[in-house]
């Protein structure tokens, strides 16, 4: 077994001598480590602190700012919001908390509609993705091993090509003089074009199309691990295939199902590009509302409170996803 490992090294012979030379050239590295230690910092702390500080500054702090602006007043000028804390005099600090933005989101029918519509659209699309993705993942996992990698590659390939251009492709297919309508008119099935673009149907289609790979991959991982002898045992005991599928396959691949659904549902709720390009004026989704509030109305406080509200909506799905992924990590070990 040990010699198997040395065999590994042969496959990349150039890497190590080169790195050795680098290390020698990096003589100051030793100085750096001495200096760090003098400051009371270990190498580990140094390694951890770089990404840590980056994420604190560019990920956590921005959230606090969004939270802050979501409770401030709008004003004219740059930046277009009032400060929360103002020094009235040297001793008196004025602290203004404005919850009116949230009240506005709650009372305005437009926002409630956008909220519910986002949930509905994301939910329906996730379900459709599952219905298409499960048989695909099942087929790939049960294909011959030599085919499996190719099929997986074919599922992944669209994911690597531009998302925007793939959504754009559907405009050409769905529009009134597009591919589908031309085809149906030519065959004579319909007399006048069916309106498909700028409808909710187009939005569902776009989301299912864009997020299908996210559904197939976790499902594939779960189905591939499934022990086939369990199904054989069930069949030997007289269980019908459908029942065996429901009683054995589905429960045992549940982590894959949940992970796939969450991976589709969460980004779909906040989706902006697909409703903007394929949807009509009334297919409002919360991501699009945020965008328009920010870019068209330039109302930063309301846009911030829409962001916070969207995040609250997604807290539970994100927690479910993280728990499921933790379980999958465990299973891999």
């Amino acid at each position, binding site marked *: 077994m040990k*010699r198997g490992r040395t065999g590994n090294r042969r496959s990349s012979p150039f*890497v190590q001598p080169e*790195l050795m030379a680098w290390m020698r050239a990096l003589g100051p590295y030793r100085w750096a480590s001495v200096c760090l230690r003098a400051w009371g910092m270990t190498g580990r702390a140094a390694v951890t602190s770089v*990404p840590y500080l980056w994420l604190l500054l560019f990920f956590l702090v921005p959230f606090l700012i*969004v939270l802050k602006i979501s409770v401030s007043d709008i004003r004219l000028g740059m930046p277009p919001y009032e400060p929360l804390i103002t020094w009235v005099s040297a001793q008196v600090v004025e602290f203004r908390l404005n919850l009116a933005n949230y009240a506005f989101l709650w009372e305005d029918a437009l926002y409630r509609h956008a909220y519910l519509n986002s949930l509905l659209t994301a939910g329906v699309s996730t379900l459709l993705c599952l219905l298409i993705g499960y048989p695909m993942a099942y087929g790939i996992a049960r294909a011959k091993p030599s085919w499996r990698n190719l099929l997986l*590659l074919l599922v992944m390939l669209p994911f690597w090509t*531009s998302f925007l*251009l793939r959504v754009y*492709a559907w405009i050409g297919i769905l529009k009134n003089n597009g591919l589908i309508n031309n085809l149906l008119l030519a065959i004579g099935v319909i007399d006048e074009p069916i309106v498909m673009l700028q409808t909710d149907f187009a939005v569902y289609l776009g989301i299912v199309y864009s997020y299908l790979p996210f559904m197939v991959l976790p499902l594939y991982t779960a189905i591939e691990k499934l022990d086939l002898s369990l199904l054989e045992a069930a069949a030997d005991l007289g269980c019908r295939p459908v029942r065996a599928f429901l009683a054995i396959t589905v429960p045992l691949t549940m982590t894959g199902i949940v992970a796939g659904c969450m991976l589709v549902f969460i980004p779909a709720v906040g989706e902006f590009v697909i409703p903007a390009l394929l949807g009509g004026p009334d297919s409002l989704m919360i991501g699009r509302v945020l965008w328009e509030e920010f870019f068209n109305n330039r109302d930063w406080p309301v846009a911030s409170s829409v962001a916070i509200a969207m995040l609250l909506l997604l807290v539970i799905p994100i927690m479910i996803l993280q728990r499921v992924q933790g379980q999958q990590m465990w299973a891999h070990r």
Partner: protein
Amino acid sequence: MNQRRSFFVLTMMTFGFAFLYIPILSLIVYSFNESRLVTVWAGFSTKWYVALLHNEAVINAAKLSLKIAALNATGATILGTLAGLALARFGRFRGRSLLTGMATAPLVMPEVITGLSLLLLFVAMEQAFGWPAGRGFTTITIAHITFSMAYVTVVVQSRLSTLDESLEEAAMDLGARPAKVFFLITLPIILPAILAGWLLAFTLSWDDLVITSFVSGPGSSTLPILIFSKVRLGVSPDINALATILVLIVATGIVTAGIYMQRQQKRRDRDMQQALADNL
């Protein structure tokens, strides 16, 4: 397997793959269309490709996107590898759960929220310290690094967690310092994962529209921003030509990488078998 079920699965698979690939194929086919009306066929022509190559705005946007994507991929790979290393190898340390949360949250965060929050940060920073002055190349790169390093972290962390720690321990036992162990043992082994992370970060940055729109300023339109503003006005054949070029580049890259990795895998298997045979 049950004959009827296998037929059903096969049908669904055919349907699924057709669903994934017909839109891409239609993009490619209509990019060679003579007519300006994209979906009415009027004969074969490559004139849209010629027009594209003479379009200054598209070329400039592509150059800017390439620059940002390369810089972003490098930065995200360094930061993501460090984070992945810390999460996979350093055991329990103070603030570990916060780092885990921050490192994986951008994966599921809706892009509009990430974009908005980063823009608000940049505006606040500019007010407070005068940096970054205005928005453009710098702010876009920082924003891209922030969301794409999460992907690198996950790739590197999962590779490290499947890797046997005994090699590293052996090197330590023989007196190598931690940094030397990393550069001589760990890095060469996880190099494929790091490369995959770099490519992923590059693609994510190259494709990103939503976050870029928030943090970009006037005069810094990347390729996706340009495409989006064109697409909003309707379908146009030069976009099809552009899409075809991009799809072909990606497909060639992926297929080459796939073949290369399969060869590596085969060679590794052969080495392993050879070693086993030698030992017996």
